[in-house]
């Protein structure tokens, strides 16, 4: 026996020993724990005492995400979903519209604690620290701090309306957002706190804020016919600001933050919401981590904010033609344009925007394609979005009725009813495209139930949303499921054309877990052939849904 052969045998034995040392661990992890599916991921449990504020950089965020592809780009299931593919409540996300239909009043109120705010008795307390929109800070009579922002003179009501609408939608989706209100500011009644300070833009030093500084801000703001100013009033979130979160990796100083952000479903799927509302500015710098204190325990809560650049608003101008259609730096079309001396033209250059009130900005739905929509620059979480992530988001989008959309748009209080009508109609048109794209991109079966009488039922979400015809056939494979090993036995296959069928007694009788694989046949949607894998666990009173896996 040669020494080479002996070495190979030793290598093989060594590897075998290492593998054997891992196997018991794997076999001891059941597929489903007793508390599955969890509805809450308590990611506020550990004291985040060591978190420190991160200094944000707009330029770095652009450079890194445009040229360095940070995070891990891969095709894996989102890591923060529960076993039925839902996103548990957490410091990132609270299921709202996705869990139950919100009333119109709830939708419109959003995160706001007040019906409205009046600026009487408020005092200017400082300047804005960042952002393009002209504005300053005010404190209410109780001393709480708010940010006041104005519309550009060229587009009255545009940015403030976008912020109101965007906040209401993102709150309904489930994200943490700050309270925002529309109010009217009478320049004759502006009071300035004697302690108000600002950074002088000409010298970069802190100094006392004066009436003249306020007037300078007002000179860049749209004025109402009555001489007042329509303003956006944003209430500062409670807690201490910690800087932006990023769409990749985790905060190294937060013990609760263990799931890479690019693999969080609610961040991946924000691409769907962003496309619907044309939130091209959805990037790390428009997010905020806040350190909250709750009974001596500190935890990080993650906010999305700054929706002034959604729909047709570019905050201080009407949205650019490129916005939502192409990254700031998109290499291929640029090289093509250069090589052809401009004869090659991007599709979005040909979009014919209708003549609409200035408060709308530049927004339309006819040429909108949810698949091709782009934020300002690449986003790690968006790039990792899979069909199941998008399907999850599309189901939330599907819950917004036409009336819901109109109610939220009306919250912006556009003085020209044509603006309300146009934005509502455009959002409805874009919603329908989102649903048609993403509810059909994966096998769209939902709402699985196995009754104690053995009746198995489900719903086709795409059909329910009116964006697809029913499948011609459902191929169902029943089997018993071993929760400790993950293996199946006793498979029985059946087909049905309906969404209700009896479970085979041979499989379900005395079984603790049952696995059902359902593939759908549809002449238009080949993706439906990939089966949805569903698991039921027997309870004392029947069967409970414990697992749903849509894309392998």
């Amino acid at each position: 026996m040669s020494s080479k052969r002996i070495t190979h045998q030793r290598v093989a034995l060594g590897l075998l020993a290492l593998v054997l040392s891992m196997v018991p661990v794997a076999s001891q992890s059941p597929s489903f724990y007793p508390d599955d599916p969890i509805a809450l991921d308590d990611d506020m449990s550990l004291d985040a005492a060591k978190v420190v504020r991160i200094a944000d950089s707009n330029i770095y965020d652009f450079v890194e995400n445009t040229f360095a592809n940070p995070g891990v780009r891969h095709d894996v299931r989102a890591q923060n979903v529960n076993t039925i593919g839902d996103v548990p409540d957490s410091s990132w996300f609270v299921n709202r519209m996705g869990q139950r239909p919100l009333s119109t009043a709830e939708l419109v109120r959003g995160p706001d604690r007040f019906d409205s705010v009046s600026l009487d008795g408020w005092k200017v307390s400082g300047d804005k620290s960042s952002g393009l929109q002209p504005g300053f800070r005010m404190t209410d009579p109780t001393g709480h701090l708010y940010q006041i922002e104005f519309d550009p003179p060229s587009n009255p009501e545009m940015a403030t309306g976008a912020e109101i609408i965007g906040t209401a939608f993102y709150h309904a989706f489930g994200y943490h957002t700050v309270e925002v209100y529309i109010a009217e500011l009478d320049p004759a009644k502006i009071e300035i706190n004697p302690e108000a300070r600002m950074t002088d833009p000409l010298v970069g030093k802190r100094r006392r804020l004066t009436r003249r500084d306020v007037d300078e801000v007002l000179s860049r703001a749209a004025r109402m016919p009555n001489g007042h100013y329509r303003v956006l009033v944003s209430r500062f979130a409670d807690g201490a600001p910690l800087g932006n979160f990023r769409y990749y990796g985790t905060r190294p100083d937060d013990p609760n933050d263990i799931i890479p952000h690019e693999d969080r479903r609610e961040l991946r799927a924000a691409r769907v919401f962003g496309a619907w509302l044309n939130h091209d500015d959805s990037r790390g710098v428009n997010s905020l981590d806040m350190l909250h204190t709750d009974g001596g325990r500190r935890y990080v809560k993650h906010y999305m904010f700054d929706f002034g650049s959604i729909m047709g608003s570019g905050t201080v101008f009407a949205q650019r033609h490129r916005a939502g259609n192409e990254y700031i730096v998109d290499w291929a079309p640029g090289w093509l344009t250069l090589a052809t001396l401009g004869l090659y033209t991007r599709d979005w250059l040909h979009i014919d925007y209708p003549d609409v009130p200035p408060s709308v900005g530049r927004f339309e739905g006819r040429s909108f394609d949810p698949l091709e929509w782009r934020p300002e620059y690449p986003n790690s979480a968006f790039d990792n979005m899979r069909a199941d992530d998008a399907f999850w988001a599309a189901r939330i989008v599907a819950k917004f009725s036409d009336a819901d959309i109109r109610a939220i748009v009306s919250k912006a209080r556009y003085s020209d009813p044509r603006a309300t009508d146009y934005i509502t109609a455009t959002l409805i048109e874009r919603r329908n495209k989102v649903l048609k794209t993403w509810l059909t991109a994966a096998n769209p079966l939902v709402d699985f139930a196995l009754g104690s009488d053995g009746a198995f039922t489900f719903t086709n979400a795409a059909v329910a949303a009116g964006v697809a015809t029913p499948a011609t056939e459902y191929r169902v494979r029943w089997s018993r499921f071993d929760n400790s090993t993950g293996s199946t036995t006793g498979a029985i296959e059946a087909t049905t054309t309906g969404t209700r069928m009896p479970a085979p007694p041979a499989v379900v009788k005395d079984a603790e877990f049952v696995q059902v694989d359902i593939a759908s046949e549809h002449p238009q949607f080949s993706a439906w052939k990939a089966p949805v894998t569903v698991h039921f666990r027997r309870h004392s009173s029947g069967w409970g849904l414990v697992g749903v896996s849509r894309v392998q």
Partner: protein
Amino acid sequence: MIHAARERRCPVYNALVSRRVIGFYVWVGFVVAIAAPAPAFAQASAPPPQTRAEVLQRARDEKGRSVTPYERNGLERALNTVETRVQSYFGRDGVHPKFGSLDTGSGFAFGVGYLNRRLVDREGALNIWGAVSLKKYWAVEGSFDMPSLAAGWLTLGTYARHQDYPQQAFFGIGPESRRDDQTAFRIVNSMAGGRARVKPARSLTVGGGVEYFRHELAPGRSKEIPSIEALFTDATAAGLGTTRNFLRPYFTFEYDYRQPRNARKGGWYRLEASRFADATDQFTFNRVDVDLRQYGSILAERRVLAVRLYASTSEPGSGARVPFYLMPTLGGHDSLRGFRDYRFRGPHAILTQTEYRFEVWSGFDAALFYDAGKVTLRRSDLNFKDLEHDYGFGFRFNTDNGTILRIDAGFGSSDGKHLYIVFGDVF
């Protein structure tokens, strides 16, 4: 043989990688795997988690034992510094660096400036700067302006400057000047003046002013190019060798409806009428400059056609002449780009420029251009016949407010190929 040689030279390496020793490593690995298990195995010795919440909690506990502050990498630190400290210095009051060029052909210049816009209850702005270029051009300037009087409708200002430009190019006067006759002269200019502008409508500005200046000519200081007096005299270059004092009253009319400032549509029309009054009347003349620029665009304003017509004419007083250094010039990065700087000089000039600009990426445009123009000795020759011309292509890094950096390559002229890298737009 090579292998044997390596064995002789590296006995330690050979000992470490011999098959027998590698086999030993594998066995050690096997023993370690059993006797000193990996962390995963160690966890197995703890009670397995009983719930999903416990699985997650264990992972958080594990991270909680090793939390570390976020550390920025070098690039992030650098860009953050640029954003929070360096960037904010540009456009701010106080002492600031100054970069760019002093004049066509001056080369890259750098210097220092001081700006204070908080004078006279924030109505007044004092701006002082000095700079020197790689070609030893230098200038200092001070100005005081009140740009927002009468709610922005009125601007008043006064200024003084001193310039020393030692290598200004001169090829002779008129369209027949020869490329081979390139010479250089030095001009030292001291100037002081006042100006006023009224803005009766949003796009309309009417202004005027008066300035006193003194031009002092001297031999050029180029090592490669002969000085002007080697080839020219006062007869062929009026004003050569003299020092002149001028008083110049002027009037301007400007209509500007470009959108945006880095224009994609609209127009900019400017007329300036001046009288250059020489103390001795030997060089007194009147001059009128007209500059018309028009912009049109298609495809969401990402394809822009920009055209320009510029004309200048000078009328000397009776018995007077126009000094060559106050004549309009053509050639260089902002006029005939296929020619060298100041290639043509004459009392009358006409220039047309056409550019087709197309956006490649946001903030980065490419352009194809065609320039044509000429200088003439007689006003009656100001027409579109026998124009010098060139064509070329360029790139622009820009914003809505203007072009930051421009690279233009000019061809097709009788003066060779020219590459210009310039801060700012051509028109």
